[in-house]
């Protein structure tokens, strides 16, 4: 489409043509005129003025009362013009905000980044995808000198930027713990005090903390109100839910956490996740647990990272590629 001249002469010609022919073509041109006027920030009152002056040129005999009525129309259109200009400026601001959040999200990614360790005897897969720009889920791996792997999966109750800020605090609290090997129950106990004291009273965190000992292949874990994990036993070809009683972090000052242990056999898998996985919906229906486990089972012979990625792809498709909640999934598979 060629650009129209946004001037009086052109408008007048188009108007004259339309009035004479009642032709759709002229109306289409009017539509183009209006779109281009908006691009050029020409406000409605100016269009009315151009219309009025065109009429005066086409019909010099136009009665005064009709001319006057245009002043009235112009006045009633003023607010629309202003609202449009305001909309333009708000849209610019929105873009600005979006790019600021993108920067923050990037910083958060760096702050919360964790390196998935390469370990003898344990195949690790992990994936965490935010539903919006900022991630309210968190996972963390830490190795100690004796070859044990600490793994944390957490979910902030709440979404978006505040949740993400809260997670950054948890990360620093965990980093500040002494390098000594600590039992999951003590780690959760200390974190609970940090959250209780420092976080807004409306914000709570659920966390599962596990410790995998590569020497005797035991997995000890404690849970602070977190979504249960799943344990896959190769011998029985069965999944079972596992969890330990414990209250969400940040509710009560003196929460205690119970610690439990599993003996991990060759080919067994430990699946840790957040409720973005178990609570995801397809349309109005909820995805049942069995469905998740089915997908994991179908992929169980693949490397852990591929299992995790395939589960993610499956759920992404189910939810029409629009995650409703942050998604975090970790798979630990004993392979030696």
């Amino acid at each position, binding site marked *: 489409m060629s650009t129209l001249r946004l001037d009086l002469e052109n408008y007048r010609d188009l108007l004259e043509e339309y009035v004479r022919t009642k032709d759709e073509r002229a109306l289409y041109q009017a539509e183009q005129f209006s779109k281009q006027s908006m691009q050029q920030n020409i406000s409605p*009152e*100016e269009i009315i*003025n151009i219309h*009025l002056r065109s009429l005066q040129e086409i019909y010099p005999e136009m009665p005064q009362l009709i001319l006057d009525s245009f*002043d009235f129309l*112009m*006045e009633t259109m*003023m*607010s629309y013009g*202003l*609202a449009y*200009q*305001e909309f333009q*400026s*708000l849209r610019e*601001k929105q873009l600005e905000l979006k790019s600021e959040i993108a920067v923050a999200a990037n910083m958060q990614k760096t702050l919360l980044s964790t390196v998935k360790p390469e370990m003898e005897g344990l195949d690790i897969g992990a994936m965490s995808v935010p539903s919006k720009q900022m991630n309210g889920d968190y996972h963390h791996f830490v190795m100690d000198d004796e070859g044990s792997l600490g793994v944390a999966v957490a979910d902030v109750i709440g979404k978006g930027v505040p949740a993400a800020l809260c997670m950054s605090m948890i990360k620093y609290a965990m980093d500040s713990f002494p390098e000594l090997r600590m039992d999951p129950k003590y780690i959760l106990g200390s974190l609970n005090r940090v959250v209780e004291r420092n976080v807004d009273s409306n914000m709570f965190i659920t966390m599962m903390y596990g410790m995998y000992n590569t020497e005797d292949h035991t997995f000890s874990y404690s849970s602070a109100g977190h979504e249960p994990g799943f344990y896959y036993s190769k011998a029985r070809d069965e999944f079972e839910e596992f969890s330990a009683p414990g209250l969400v972090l940040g509710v009560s000052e003196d929460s205690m956490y119970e610690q439990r242990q599993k003996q991990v056999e060759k080919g067994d898998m430990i699946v840790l996740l957040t409720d973005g996985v178990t609570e995801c919906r397809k349309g109005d229906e909820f995805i049942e647990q069995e469905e998740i486990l089915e997908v994991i089972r179908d992929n169980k012979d693949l490397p852990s990272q591929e299992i995790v990625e395939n589960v993610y792809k499956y759920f992404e498709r189910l939810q029409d590629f629009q995650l409703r909640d942050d998604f975090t999934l970790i798979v630990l598979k004993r392979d030696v």
Partner: protein
Amino acid sequence: MKDQSCVYIKKEWDIVAARQMGRDIAIKVGFGTVDQARIATAISELARNIYLYAGAGKICFEAIETVQKKGINIKAIDEGPGISDLAQVMEDGYSTSGGLGAGLPGVKRLMDEFDIISKSGEGTTIESTKWLR
């Protein structure tokens, strides 16, 4: 000193008188109908601001002329509570979301120059100019 004409704003219908006086001066300066409508709308916003938030005040008009250009200068003066957060009232969406119309950002858009001086507890003076092109 040029002639200055003022309209006192105490009740809603004083807004109309302020618009009328502003329009008369705008016509004398030589503004066309579109600019007249813009000036009148700006006056409405300024006067309504006084009426709603300060209770009383005045709007003064002045036709100005320099070597290069002519224009109209509008001052809205009140002795109301003052505006504590100027950045907020000048923010887009702040007054419109409350259904109060274009607000001060609208005035700024309609006119060419715009300035506010406000002291908490002492009142607000808004000065705005539109030049004839």
